[in-house]
């Protein structure tokens, strides 16, 4: 599909409750806009995100998935984000192999104080997904209209 | 040890000795300056406008040639150094300027700031080392009280030039010490000499330079050294001035190659 202005991607953002979800709240209370294409799912920690969730998102038609957690060393549960980082490295490389480009998946560390960063990251990610266009891999054809 | 070398227009002309002393000193210190084959004038001042591309191309050409030679690029004149380092920084960090400059140049390999630009003084500090320089000195300049004059172009903007602390530099003082002389630290050593203003407003430059001389003399300097022909020209025009030398002249003297250099 060619990139066009009308393309509105579906983007799922998993945010840990302690840092990134709070960072998103701060972006909100500071009125720092980012596209409505991003929908946030709250998880207790980035390590709660099962690769299965991300595969399912792509299967159901997501065009990009981003996982946000506390900065390394600052995880509320001490080590959760380290697990997430390792798991996602593997998963993303497998997804890339399967044709879901690396640009469609991302891990970012956003602290509770980084509203600006949250908004910047989301703007950037959406722009990236828009440039990549619709995701055609992994989609469950039965889900198509 | 070999470096690509960019002399610049003034060193081919009014400041021949700055160049000659440097080449002789380099040899004495064990490195060679290999002049780029067809360099062009850098323009003297860095074109500040973000949309000025053509005026930056001479620098890009020199930088790309050094890259192709696989060498770091050494300069002597403060102005050339300033322009080359800043254009190099643009080529490395400013995607817009990089793209547009490369579109003009049509190089075999596009240039993206790969070359390391070094001032002759940085070579002495970072590659040779002041300890090593001290060992090579045969005529120590004992007893001489020398004020280092940095001017603006070597130091600012500090983040891009990354030459020394722009407000309290030490490089030339360490250099003077290594030659066996006594550095005189004075606060106006990083104040502007007036630069190109001296062409149309000589009085302004003269006032600035006399303040610099007065300040340096007040702290006990007997002479000044500089790396820039324009600074030297402006400083020399001021009344009651201290003698102003190129740093390479004192270097050649201390290394015992001064006489030979001008032959």
């Amino acid at each position: 599909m060619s990139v066009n202005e009308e393309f509105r991607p579906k983007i799922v953002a998993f945010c840990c409750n302690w840092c990134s979800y709070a960072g998103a709240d701060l972006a909100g209370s500071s009125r720092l806009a980012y596209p409505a294409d991003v929908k946030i799912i709250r998880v207790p920690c980035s390590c709660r995100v099962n690769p299965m969730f991300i595969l399912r998102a792509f299967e159901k038609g997501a065009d990009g998935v981003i996982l946000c957690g506390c900065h390394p060393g600052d995880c509320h549960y001490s080590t959760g984000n380290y697990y997430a980082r390792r798991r996602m490295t593997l998963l993303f490389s497998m997804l890339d192999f399967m044709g879901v480009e690396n640009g469609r998946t991302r891990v970012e560390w956003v602290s509770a104080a980084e509203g600006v960063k949250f908004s910047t990251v989301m703007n950037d990610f959406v722009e990236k997904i828009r440039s990549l266009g619709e995701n055609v891999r992994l989609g469950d054809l039965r889900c198509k209209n | 040890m070999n470096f690509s070398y960019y002399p610049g227009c003034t060193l081919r002309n009014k400041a021949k000795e700055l160049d000659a002393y440097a080449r002789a000193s380099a040899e004495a210190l064990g490195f060679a300056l290999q002049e780029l084959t067809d360099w062009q004038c850098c323009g003297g001042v860095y074109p500040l406008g973000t949309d000025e591309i053509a005026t930056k191309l001479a620098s890009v050409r020199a930088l790309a040639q050094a890259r192709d030679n696989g060498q770091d690029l050494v300069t002597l004149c403060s102005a050339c150094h300033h322009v080359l380092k800043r254009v190099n920084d643009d080529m490395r960090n400013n995607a817009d300027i990089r793209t547009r400059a490369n579109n003009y140049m049509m190089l075999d390999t596009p240039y993206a700031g790969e070359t390391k630009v070094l001032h002759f003084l940085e070579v002495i500090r970072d590659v040779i080392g002041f300890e090593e320089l001290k060992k090579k000195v045969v005529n120590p300049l004992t007893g001489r009280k020398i004020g280092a004059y940095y001017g603006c172009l070597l130091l600012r903007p500090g983040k891009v030039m990354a030459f020394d602390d722009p407000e309290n530099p030490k490089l030339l003082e360490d250099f003077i010490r290594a030659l066996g002389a006594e550095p005189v630290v004075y606060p106006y050593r990083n104040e502007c000499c007036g630069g190109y203003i001296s062409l149309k407003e000589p009085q302004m430059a003269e006032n600035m330079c006399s303040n610099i001389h007065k300040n340096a003399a007040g702290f006990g300097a007997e002479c000044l050294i500089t790396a820039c022909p324009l600074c030297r020209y402006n400083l020399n025009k001021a009344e009651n001035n201290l003698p102003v030398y190129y740093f390479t002249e004192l270097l050649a003297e201390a290394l015992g190659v001064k006489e030979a250099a001008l032959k």
Partner: protein
Amino acid sequence: MSTQNKAKLVREISGTNPSKCMKCGKCSATCPSFDEMDIKPHQFVSYVQKGDIEALANSKSLWKCLSCFACVERCPRDVQPGRIIDAARQIVVRQRGGNYLTADEIPALLDEELPQQLLVSAYRRYKR
């Protein structure tokens, strides 16, 4: 060109953001040419903000700035007044007849010692 467009052009050429200025005056405190300038360095910013590029373009300050970057180095807000005044200068010299230095003037300005560098620098700053 409209005044608004000129102000926009100054922002573009200089690559700076005058809105970052907090009016501390450190640029004017720093500038070695302060006394020679009619519009002072800290005012460059407000002239661009007001969109009064005309006044800036007609000011003496254009030709008194030394591009010594002391204001750029010391500005706590990264506004870079030196780049702003250069952009205004560019707008002037890029217009026909806007040159501050012409070839005819040069012979009278020369002397024995004058380095080439001075001529090329002045040419770059003063002339299209």
